[in-house]
């Protein structure tokens, strides 16, 4: 590049001077000179003439040309020096100075000889050509030459100075020949005189040029690196910014929609020229091509950029949410594209997390609802209520119609998938249902089934507790019945004996005696019947005194046997409650039997029964309930008795019975020292 420019400059310069000074006869010579100059300088010098620069020869040759004025010669000199410094920066100390020393004296000598003739030029040569190089080299190139001699008159210079006038003469006669021969001669001369030096110079030149190109390369490299670093920095800044944005957003408890809103705000702040939109999946506005593009982005997932000079359109996908679309008069460079790509990638990751959190929250809410439902289930006692709640809740949670059928009860009407359910089926349209929701539904059904089971078990428990109570009573009652029965049996036997011996009166009196026993039995049996028949039937108005009175025959005997004193209230009061008499009797008998068992074998054992409006109190002077057990006595299957002595259902079922009567069964310490159980119900006033 530099060379071409230089050649062009030289050509221009030559053309200019020729137009002014050169006559027609030297035109061919001038052109030739320039051509050779160009050739030599550019190509020939390093090839044909070894390591010699032809520029000085040229300068001399040119100087010899008679047509050239001194000014023109100086111009040529300048050109040559420039060329020399450019192409062969031989001297590491100073190429220009070296060139000046090389060229100026020779050229001046040639010029002088050519103009002034040999003789005329002698003084010039003596004055100028010989001392000038010495002076110049002394002044300008203190280390000129390879030998590092200061102020040495090099053979080269002398040759040039001396041959310069010869060339000048030759140039006057035959300029073309001069131009051809002169450099050759000079170069041969130089090669002969200083081939080693030239080689060294040459290698120095080459090294120098390499060094220079290395430096250039390095500079370029540094420059490029700087540019890249700058780009990198910008990229890093942008990413840091996007991450900071993501972080601040992630630190706040945002839903996906709120987060999207924030993100769009932030993007609008950062690239205000663009219109930023979030398009939920499936909604793609704009013209047909943009819509198609957005659809493609949504389906394929790779971002889309389109730019026309100043305006840009771009879109990125947020998986499972939608597409972010921007358009506007701004330029989206590659760094920004990259940064935005990364940003949206992390945004989608974050959204995924948000969604997971939302799912988690949803599941927790479901679980909470399930637990609440389970709590409600636990309070229900009728299978129909349980199924009703089951369907109601399942409907509320899923927003779908459902139905359940179990044990001959059908609640709700629905079609769809059949889920197995305790003793029946559960129907619901479960299409497109979230697996976790389905799982929750299953869990709910299991809970429901458990509640149904519990209902059944409770009913069975009631029955078995009743049977257990009857069993407890049976012991006492067996004695109560067997004794009069024995009396009847013996009485009849005796009567028969008397009849056999015709003692009629005696026989009759025996039979009458038997009648007493029959009456005795009738009373006991009727109480028993009361006890068993009334249970399970509806409620009616009953007098608590009657309950007590009816219960007494069933337990009295055992109290007598165990020598437990039974202190009773006056049995003529009236305390009405609306209740199931049999059940109340069951509770009362249970409490009395408990008291009796607690007192077994204690001297001075005493049980006191008190009646009040809506209340029956059973107190004893036994050991009472141990403090650590007070909390637990109403738990099912809690018992302090030995294995085989009771299953621990009495009190829990007693309490259930009273709770079912909107009443309560309470325990407290008795004034007598032992336990006091209080049956409380709503009093009915007439």
């Amino acid at each position, binding site marked *: 590049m530099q060379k071409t420019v230089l050649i062009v400059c030289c050509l221009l310069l030559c053309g200019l001077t020729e137009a002014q000074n050169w006559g027609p006869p030297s035109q061919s010579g001038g052109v030739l000179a320039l051509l050779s100059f160009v050739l030599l300088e550019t190509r020939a010098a390093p090839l044909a003439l070894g390591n010699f620069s032809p520029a000085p020869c040229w300068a001399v040759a040119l100087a010899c040309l008679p047509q050239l004025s001194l000014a023109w010669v100086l111009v040529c000199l300048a050109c040559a020096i420039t060329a020399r410094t450019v192409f062969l920066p031989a001297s590491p100390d100073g190429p220009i100075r070296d060139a000046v020393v090389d060229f100026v004296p020779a050229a001046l000598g040639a010029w002088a000889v050519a103009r002034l003739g040999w003789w005329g030029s002698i003084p010039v040569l003596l004055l100028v050509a010989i001392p000038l190089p010495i002076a110049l080299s002394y002044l300008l190139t203190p280390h000129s030459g390879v030998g590092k001699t200061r102020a040495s008159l090099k053979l080269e210079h002398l040759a040039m100075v001396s041959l310069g006038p010869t060339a000048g003469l030759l140039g006057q006669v035959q300029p073309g020949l001069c131009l051809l021969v002169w450099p050759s001669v000079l170069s041969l001369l130089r090669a002969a005189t200083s081939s080693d030096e030239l080689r060294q110079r040459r290698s120095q030149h080459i090294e120098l040029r390499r060094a220079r190109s290395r430096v250039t390369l390095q500079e370029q490299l540094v420059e490029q690196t700087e540019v890249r670093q700058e780009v990198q920095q910008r990229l890093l800044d942008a990413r840091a910014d996007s991450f900071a944005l993501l972080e601040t957003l992630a630190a706040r408890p945002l839903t996906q929609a709120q987060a999207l809103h924030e993100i769009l705000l932030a993007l609008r702040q950062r690239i205000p020229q663009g219109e930023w939109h979030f398009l939920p999946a499936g909604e793609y506005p704009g013209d047909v091509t943009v819509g198609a593009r957005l659809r493609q982005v949504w389906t394929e997932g790779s971002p889309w950029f389109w730019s026309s000079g100043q305006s840009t359109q771009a879109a990125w996908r947020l998986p499972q949410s939608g597409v972010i679309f921007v358009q506007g008069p701004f330029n989206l460079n590659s760094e920004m594209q990259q940064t935005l790509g990364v940003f949206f990638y992390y945004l989608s990751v974050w959204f995924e997390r948000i969604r997971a959190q939302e799912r988690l929250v949803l599941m927790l809410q479901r679980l909470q609802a399930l637990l609440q439902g389970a709590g409600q289930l636990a309070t229900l006692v009728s299978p129909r209520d349980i199924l009703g709640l089951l369907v109601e809740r399942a409907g509320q949670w899923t927003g779908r119609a459902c139905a359940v059928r179990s044990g001959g009860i059908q609640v709700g009407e629905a079609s769809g998938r059949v889920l197995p359910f305790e003793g029946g089926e559960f129907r619901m349209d479960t299409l497109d249902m979230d697996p976790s929701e389905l799982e929750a539904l299953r869990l709910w059904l299991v809970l429901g089934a458990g509640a149904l089971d519990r209902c059944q078990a409770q009913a069975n428990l009631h029955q078995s507790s009743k049977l257990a109570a009857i069993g407890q009573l049976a012991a006492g009652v067996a004695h109560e019945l067997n004794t009069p029965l024995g009396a009847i049996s013996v009485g009849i036997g005796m009567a028969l*004996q008397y009849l056999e011996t015709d003692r009629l009166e005696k026989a009759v009196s025996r039979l009458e005696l038997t009648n007493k026993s029959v009456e005795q039995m009738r009373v006991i049996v009727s109480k028993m019947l009361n006890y068993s028949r009334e249970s399970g039937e509806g409620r009616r108005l009953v007098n608590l005194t009657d309950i007590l009175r009816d219960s007494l025959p069933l337990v009295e005997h055992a109290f007598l046997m165990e020598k437990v004193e039974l202190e009773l209230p006056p049995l003529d009061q009236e305390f009405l409650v609306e209740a199931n008499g049999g059940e109340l009797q069951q509770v009362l008998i249970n409490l009395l039997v408990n008291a009796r068992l607690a007192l077994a074998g204690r001297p001075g054992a005493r049980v006191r029964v008190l009646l009040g409006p809506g209340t029956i109190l059973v107190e004893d002077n036994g050991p009472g309930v141990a403090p650590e057990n007070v909390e637990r006595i109403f738990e099912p299957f809690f018992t302090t008795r030995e294995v085989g002595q009771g299953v621990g259902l009495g009190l829990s079922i007693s309490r259930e019975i009273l709770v079912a009567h909107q009443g309560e069964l309470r325990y407290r310490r008795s004034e007598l020292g032992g336990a006091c159980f209080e049956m409380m119900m709503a009093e009915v006033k007439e």
Partner: protein
Amino acid sequence: MNRVLVLEDDNTLRELLVDAVESMEYDVKAAESATMALHLGREFDFDLVISDIRMAGPTDGLGVLAALKQRLPGMACIVITGYADKTAPLRALQIRVDDYLYKPFEVKDLIAAVQRVHKSQSQRSWYRQVLHRLLGQAASDADLAELQASRENSLKSFFVGVRSQHLYAETALNLWDAWEDLEVEYLRVANIRVVAAEVARRLIDRYGLWQARLSKEAASQSFVAAGTRSQEKVDRATFRRFVDRIKAAKLSAEDLGLAVALRRIPGEQRKRNAELERLFQRMWGSA
């Protein structure tokens, strides 16, 4: 034996019982409570007490019996009960009651029981004679007398245990197997004219152990499977019949003393003696 005490808290039944026993021409005293019975027991020497178990008062029927027996060890006891707790049979066996009747019973059951108990003393000596005759044994000496007393007590326990239905048939069979072993030993010993004192003592101890085992199993109403049947042992069907006969009071405690011996003597020898054959049929016969 002519003075009987009836202890029963149910007025009607007591009156009827008194009437029934009186009809058997005994001198009957009635007590309506334990206290009264104890009071009467101090005043009179009763030969027989018929008592209910469960009753109000400081002690129950069995307590009264035990107290009375301390004073009159030879006194006979019949227990009548409608229902009794678990400890009752054990205590009944301990105080060696003579019979155990469940309410309701018929007059003839009671009369049979009273008569059986009445007869038992004379019967006991009669059986001893039969046994001696059967074994050709000379009159017993003192050791032998104690041995026999111990044996008879064991039999009584077995009888009451079965009667009071506190022994399962299978448990009873198991006990009976052990009993047969004891009986073989006893018969062997009884055959020797002069029994060494320590041999008799050892046998008495074994009777004691057997009784203790019976009491325990009767009290806990445990079910103990009897060993496998062999030629020597009584088979289940026969034993079931035997137990039923005891429950129905067709056999008395004294009868049981002959049971093993009867089963063990060869058939021809038995058939030659009409009385033995009749006794065998009563106990083990299939009719």
